[in-house]
């Protein structure tokens, strides 16, 4: 509307106003829906509008110019709060941007806010946030999944077209499935982890939510690639992911492992995922049977390795250099104990203690060393499967979104939410969740495609082709437009 009132000689000004007014609308939506969803821990109106104005004044072409994006609150953003959903970092403001964030900003994206999450990314429901649970936009009595549930809800509710999350065992794909959007976990090393607060360093990834496969492709293209600040970021060329989205998928081989469609899988989820696989066959893909004999050990391996690494990584929260310190703590050692006791929530304590236990003297070989060997077997299964197929199709989550409170007293039941996603993190390979239907209760369901190392492009192509032919058009009950 603004355009109509501005003469042609001032087009640059009008373009600037367009970004600002669009970001203003995004911020209004974020604030309005947050009272229902609790998806944002902070909405950065001032910095977002300043950034939008600056972009309006700048005539240069940028790949994501004016693109609004939300960032999970365990990814550092200079000057903005980065709480990790934890009381121990409640008032922590990072002094630097994560590499993924600085690349987004350099590409013209506008950070709208920081999103709610399970404390330190430990959880599958978002009930573990120190700042209250996130609600699923499809049914606010249900969880959005986790741990990146705030980012998932922000995208699913139409506030932003894309958001960054993080994955250690499925924390983007599982909420993507439960919220009816796309979620990509890239190959380990594809996106720099610099500025991602460490949980389990050999498993952690920055991962991406998008309303469409193209949103994911655009964001990935900007943030992927080698970063000298993260020695585990790989020196592998970054293709033009968006350009590859419409390639023909005829003849693509999709592997299906029967053992992953058995016990514990909700019948409606099973039916929707099987239909999706049939749909791929109709698009010209070939379906082949494969075996992943060690996949069912993934959760056990994960809860040894992830907790072991977490117990070490979270040792840094001791009330000395940053974050919360307990009052009246007396002497130093007592200050450490009280700070950690008061600053961490129950799931974080459970995992720190489990990790401490599996690494403790006399148990190390039985648990940690054993888990590392089974991790090698999980990876070997995948490499063998990829000799027969290009992709592996599975459900993303064994169930649709569950009710808030339903699993919160049973940590093991919660852990099993990640049974289909965790193996890709153990192996280090990429995987994407694609929305494919809705249950009788009106809850979205996604399927997962797992690919070989560095196959993000082909995975996004498969996802985009699927959604072009079988679009998922339903909208959640809480939606911005």
């Amino acid at each position: 509307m603004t355009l109509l009132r501005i003469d042609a000689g001032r087009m640059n000004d009008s373009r600037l106003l367009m970004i600002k007014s669009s970001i203003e609308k995004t911020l209004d939506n974020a604030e309005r829906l947050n009272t229902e969803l609790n998806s944002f821990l902070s909405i950065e109106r001032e910095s977002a509008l300043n950034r939008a104005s600056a972009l309006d004044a700048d005539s240069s072409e940028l790949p994501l110019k004016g693109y609004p994006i939300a960032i999970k609150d365990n990814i550092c953003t200079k000057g903005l709060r980065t709480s990790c959903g934890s009381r121990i970092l409640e008032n922590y403001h990072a002094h630097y941007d994560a590499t993924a964030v600085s690349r987004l900003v350099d590409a013209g994206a506008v950070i709208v806010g920081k999103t709610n999450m399970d404390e330190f990314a430990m959880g599958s429901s978002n009930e573990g946030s120190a700042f209250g649970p996130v609600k699923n936009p499809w049914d606010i009595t249900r969880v959005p999944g986790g741990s990146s549930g705030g980012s998932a809800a922000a995208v699913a509710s139409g506030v932003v077209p894309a958001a960054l999350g993080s994955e250690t065992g499925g924390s983007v794909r599982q909420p993507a499935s439960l919220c009816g959007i796309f979620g990509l976990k890239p190959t380990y090393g594809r996106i720099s982890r610099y500025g991602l607060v460490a949980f389990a360093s050999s498993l952690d990834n920055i991962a991406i939510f998008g309303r469409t496969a193209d949103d994911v492709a655009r964001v990935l293209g900007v943030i992927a690639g080698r970063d000298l600040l993260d020695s585990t970021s790989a020196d592998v060329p970054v293709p033009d992911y968006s350009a590859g989205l419409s390639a023909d998928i005829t003849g693509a081989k999709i592997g299906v492992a029967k053992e992953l469609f058995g016990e514990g899988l909700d019948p409606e989820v099973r039916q929707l995922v099987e239909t999706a696989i049939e749909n791929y066959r109709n698009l010209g893909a070939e379906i082949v049977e494969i075996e992943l004999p060690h996949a069912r050990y993934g959760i056990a391996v994960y809860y040894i390795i992830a907790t072991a690494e977490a117990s070490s990584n979270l040792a840094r929260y001791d009330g000395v250099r940053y974050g919360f310190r307990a009052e009246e703590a007396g002497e130093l050692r007592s200050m450490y104990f009280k700070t950690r006791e008061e600053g961490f929530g129950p799931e974080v304590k459970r995992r720190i203690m489990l990790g401490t236990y599996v690494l403790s003297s006399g148990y190390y070989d039985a648990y940690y060393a054993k888990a590392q060997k089974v991790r090698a077997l999980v990876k070997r299964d995948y490499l063998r499967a990829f000799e027969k197929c290009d992709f592996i199709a599975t459900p993303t989550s064994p169930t649709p979104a569950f009710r808030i409170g339903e699993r919160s007293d049973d940590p093991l039941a919660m852990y099993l939410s990640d049974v289909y996603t965790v193996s890709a993190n153990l192996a280090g390979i990429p995987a994407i969740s694609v929305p494919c239907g809705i249950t009788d209760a009106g809850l979205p369901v996604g399927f997962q495609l797992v690919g070989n190392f560095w196959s993000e492009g082909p995975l996004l192509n498969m996802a985009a082709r699927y959604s072009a032919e079988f679009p998922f058009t339903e909208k959640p009950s809480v939606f911005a437009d």
Partner: protein
Amino acid sequence: MDVRKVAKLAHLEITDEEVALYTPQMEGIVKYIEQLNELDTEGIEPMLGGLTDEGIATRVIRDDEIRPSLRQQDALGEAPSAVEGHFQVPKVL
């Protein structure tokens, strides 16, 4: 499982209520992870990290050049207590 001992190793001052809550939960989880014992892993090389073969091949050495880093003021700026360029902690003894 002696949860109190594990908590001490992890620098957590947990309460009696927490011990009562965590003990059965953690015993259940440990029982679950022990299913790995049914697998024969003789001769399998442990997988140490998420690095791929390509990742391992990534060049990690750079030139030893002075580059800007976090300023002292910023490094201390988030500390619960800092004095005269140092982090301040309660007495050690």
